[in-house]
């Protein structure tokens, strides 16, 4: 039943065997041991499982692993090859997270936003992060870290 697929995971070409019904999130976590994407709802509501598929964010709980054959998947682990991203530095300095469970998803989404739009407005930041749920912080310190990264706020 299993089928071999070839995926570029965090810059490294990997051949892995997946069942046709397997969810990308489960394969990332259980087969590949990449634990930063997490499951908060399993139906695309919370964004905690966000990863980049060919550079564009997807909710990995809504993607079948077999769909990513011959494509490129990047998780938070793959974004730190040159150390912390600037937005991570600002999140660290600003004590942006509390429980931290949602943090990987927010970092991935913030990174995608800033790559596409280095000078977003506050509304654009809110919009870009609106698919990610955080129950602890009230979002304000997360948004402020992104604003500081793009120089929109001191």
């Amino acid at each position, binding site marked *: 039943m299993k089928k071999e697929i070839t995926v570029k995971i965090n810059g490294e070409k990997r051949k892995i065997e997946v069942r046709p019904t397997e969810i990308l999130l489960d394969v990332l976590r259980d087969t590949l041991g990449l634990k930063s994407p997490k499951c908060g709802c399993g139906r695309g509501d919370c964004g905690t499982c966000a990863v980049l598929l060919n550079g564009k964010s997807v909710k990995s709980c809504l993607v079948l692993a077999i769909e990513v054959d011959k494509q490129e998947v990047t998780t*938070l682990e793959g974004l730190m090859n040159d150390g912390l991203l600037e937005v991570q530095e600002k999140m*660290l300095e600003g004590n942006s*997270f509390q429980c931290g469970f949602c943090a990987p998803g927010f970092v991935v989404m913030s990174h995608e936003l800033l790559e596409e739009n280095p000078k977003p407005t506050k509304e654009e930041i809110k919009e870009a992060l609106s698919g990610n749920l955080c*129950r602890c912080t009230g*979002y304000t310190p997360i948004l402020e870290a992104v604003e500081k990264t793009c120089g929109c706020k001191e």
Partner: protein
Amino acid sequence: MSDLKYVGKSVIRQDGLEKVTGAALYTDDLDFGPNLLYAAIVESPHANAEIVKINIKKAQEHEDVVKVITGDEFPYRFGLYMHDRYIFAQKRVRFVGEQVAAVIARTPAAALKGAQLVEVKYKVLKPILCVQDALGSDENFQIEKNNMIHPELSEYKHVPWFFPKENTNIAHFRKIRKGNIDDAFKKADYVFEDEYSVPRYAHCAIENHVAVGLFDYSKRLTLWTASQSPHTQRHLFAEALAPLGLTHKDIRVITPFVGGGFGGKAGVSMEILAAALATKVQGYPVKILWNRNQEFINTYQRQGVTAKIKVGVTKNGEITALEQLLYWDAGAYVEYGANVVNAAGLSATGPYRIPNLKIDSVCVYTNLPPGGPYRGFGYSEFLFGLESHFNEVAKKLNIDPVEFRLLNAIKEGDELSYGAKMNPNGLIEAIEKVKKEIQWGKEEKSEDPKTKVGKGFSLFWKAPAMPPNASSTCFLKFNEDASINLLISGMEIGQGYFTVMGQVAAEILQVPPSKIRCLSPDTDRNPYEWQTVASHITWSCGNAVARAAEDARDQIFEVVHRALGKNIVDLYLEDEEVKSKADSDFHLPLRDFVINGIGLKDGTFRGGPIVGRGMFMPEFSSALSDSETGQGGKPNVHYTVGAAACIVKVDIDTGKVQVPKMVLAVDAGKALNPDLVNGQITGGLLQGLATVLYEDMRFDKNGKLLNSNFTDYKIPTTMDIPDEIVPIIIENAQPDGPFGARGVGEHTMIPVAPMIGNAIEDAVGVRIKHMPITAEKICTALLAKKSK
């Protein structure tokens, strides 16, 4: 205390780097190897039914199924304050979603399939889904035995401060009687009565509950859980599984980072299943991971409440009498939730000085999911009614609602509802500062004629609700480089507990917080902590850490004295060194001796590894009081108080509410880390805002929850936040707190619902008495008002 170096500073979180990099591991991130088994639960589809027969044959025969377990194998009850919850349903189910059996399998899919193949035959009974039905029509609430949700109620073990009523659905009846209420109502210039209600809510931590149990071949039971309560879990597992011969020494609970708690991961709920099931598959770890639907239903829910409020006042606005009758929809099991009811009953006056009181706080069983602890622990619920009602009272007396609050606000030394005295607090200061920040009294006008602007105000208070002997402990150990590990057993659930514990130790030992790491609890290694609940950890465990640090400091001075002859009274710590007031040239780095001791000229050494120990228990607290009046005892250690206000904009056509500004002032005693206190304010305000504007649980007529997901139960996103939040920290030291600190974690969501309700009333002149205050309710009320 102005010369503090680390306490009171907004240092970066100890766990910050782990969290922004995704390195932080939560329970479901741990690997348990190829032997890991998965359990799925067979859930009751009925709210009230007898279990006639369970057929497990088909499930057992399914591929990859290892074992099927039913209640026959675990006929045991458990609970924190009252033993009324079952590991598996016994003969009867009491809510939709209750665990009836479990299927353990090699894969999650096989476990799920197996669970579908378990056949359960039920005799369906009429469910009791509201408090009125559960209480019945008798004035003493007596009901027929077959209408009792727990016919064995009188046999249940419970804490001595609970008062269940026989032959009723009342698990606990908390009464407060003070002064002469009848006389006071007679003498009052005015008496105002009303009724308010608050529905059930879900915690919605983003991490779902998960537990892994391993009963190894040496008969040790280890649990890895996403929990706020490792030691309490060990204790409850030991109590529940005692018939299997397990005691505390046989059980170990390990708790990694927790992805949000808010009370939902306190005590023991689904984790009991992992503990029990593990004993049936010796040698294999078995995992139970709740999905979001189960997370909503089978952990704890915030209980609903109906409040009947009657207030007596003088024409000058002085409150002379209060009757608060609180009827709580506590659900099918109240082992934890009954204490929410108790806590609310003790404090249902709000932060007001009221001489004559009658309070009934009644814990009522229903066939809805178990109620339990939720950030605020009953205070958000009763304060919605009280603070809404006081606003109405002030309006009727033609007194400014803030002046009304200032007139009646409780002060240090005032008598509390149960007879003890109020602690030092900055309530008046909080009111004044919030009033100023929100520009109270200044009318805000909207340029859009379809939008009305209003302002709302609310006070808040809360005491830790805990047993009188809830304690905290700390072991503090130095490493060679004078870095420090704190072994403590509170949970870092996001609030910043590790960070502030580090700051407390840092201040006393003059070692920077960046060199201090706390270790997540493992009950085999870290010393005892009751639970991470009640906003008591900063205060209670902070005291334990301070004492451990002082103990370590004493050992350091003693060895320096013994090895080098320095006078202990002259010694002090600075910049990771021991220094002496008597000898300005003397400075001995801690790293030179805290592990290996101080070398003498003869080649011998003095000292050795420095290990501090600290403990704290509030020895002045007592939960014993008169059952009929609630007088006597000192059930609450202290209250944290504050005030909050907001501006709202209401669209009069759609009823949609926007919140341009929120302000909250809290008396933290001493903010050990102001940034983290501000984080609690920002987060708590939004969580509170969600309960009043967006969230509520909807059940169908059979007791099934209809909105157990984030599509239908809407928690706020980045698009729903207020434009501006102003946190204000007030510091009136808590005399017995570490550096004067007291807890603030729960408090910040407590005033939100009434202050929004008050602001909406101010804007459009309609009073919504039943939460949530939806656009639909506002619109309907506006239409009704117009048609009058």
